């Protein structure tokens, strides 16, 4: 009941929060001439605008609608093929940065492993993964939310669903196992109860 109230408030007034690791990423964008960014969430004008300023190619996977399908896959080979089909084509250019804003919370461990192994396959040494994980809260919205980068490098949590479901609250150990190709570079607990992770391939 409390979780539902929290979500209703978020829908009425989107919550803006500081994400220091994301801020450091944005501040570091000018360091490369070109970025290939993979966003596992839905396309947002602000995300396009942000990376459009930095000679980027932005790949939008928008996996929110495929979460149940991915979680239902039991055969690893089939999961691999399905994930590959769901991700935008790689185009012979390694991915530099992956935005996993919320989607990890909705993937069960096998599906999470399958997705991240395919992402690792299209990356390079040093590919970064930025993720937001429900940590303090026991519940989360039934569907992945939408996070919008702001001009001050904060993120806006645009919740779109009222109903709540239990959050998996993945621990760093869980994530280390599921993201076998990646290592945790940094992690920070945020004021909104989420934990911000930066993984490196």
């Amino acid at each position, binding site marked *: 009941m409390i979780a539902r109230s929290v979500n209703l408030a978020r829908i009425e007034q*989107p919550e803006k929060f500081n994400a220091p690791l994301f801020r450091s990423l944005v501040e570091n964008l000018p360091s490369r001439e*070109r970025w290939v960014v993979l966003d596992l969430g*839905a*396309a947002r004008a602000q995300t396009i*605008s942000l990376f*459009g300023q930095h*000679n980027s190619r932005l790949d*939008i996977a928008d996996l929110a609608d495929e979460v149940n399908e991915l979680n239902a896959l039991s055969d690893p080979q089939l999961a691999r093929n399905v994930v590959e089909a769901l991700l*935008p084509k790689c185009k012979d250019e390694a991915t530099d940065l992956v935005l996993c804003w919320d989607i990890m919370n909705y993937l069960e461990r096998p599906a999470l492993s399958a997705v991240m192994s395919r992402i690792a396959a299209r990356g390079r040494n040093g590919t970064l993964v930025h993720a937001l994980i429900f940590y303090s809260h026991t519940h989360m919205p039934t569907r992945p939310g939408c996070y919008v980068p702001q001009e001050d490098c904060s993120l806006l949590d645009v919740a779109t669903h009222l109903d709540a479901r239990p959050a998996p609250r993945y621990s760093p150990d869980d994530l280390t196992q599921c993201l076998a190709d990646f290592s945790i570079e940094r992690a920070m607990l945020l004021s909104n109860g989420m934990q911000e992770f930066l993984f490196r391939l």
Partner: protein
Amino acid sequence: MFERGKKDNSDKGALDTIDKGSEQYFSDQKPTSNTQAPKTPDRTEAAVIGRSIRIDGDLRGEEDLRIEGDVNGTIQLRNNTLTIGSEGKISANVYAKSVTVDGSMQGDVFGSECVSVRKNAQVNGNITAPRVSLEDGAKFKGSIEMDPAAVEKALSSQPSATKNQKAVDANAKIASRSNIRLSTPDTATVKGEA
């Protein structure tokens, strides 16, 4: 079928929204300036493909075009604006100066100036353009290439028309032996030269 129509003011608004630059998208969660776009006294005419029309093949032209029907194949309006209306269903690679998508689009979009994806649009494909705008609510899956060098390279390698290619241009000149199949139900009307 091909109708002469006034260009929708809302399209002009979409392009104006892009011209205002990226700062607006950071300051406004939902770009709403479409309704505030200044009205231009000299409204440009655009050819229209009506919603009951289906075209399979290559489509080329030298004037602005609005599509409310179904088009499968390739669309080339190198120096003009293409609008895929809310009723439009496109399965094609598109090359134009500027493209506005308000309908359903499957394929790659190349815009030498800009590409705008409206909130009700569904796009499955890749967008290559120096400026890309997307309204919240739009469904998009694919890649957005905004690197000027990559955009220039992609646009310079776009397919060019050949003598043997049969095409329908925006003036509705329909070659009788072309590879275009026009499905015109009883309700459809054909205007222009045929």
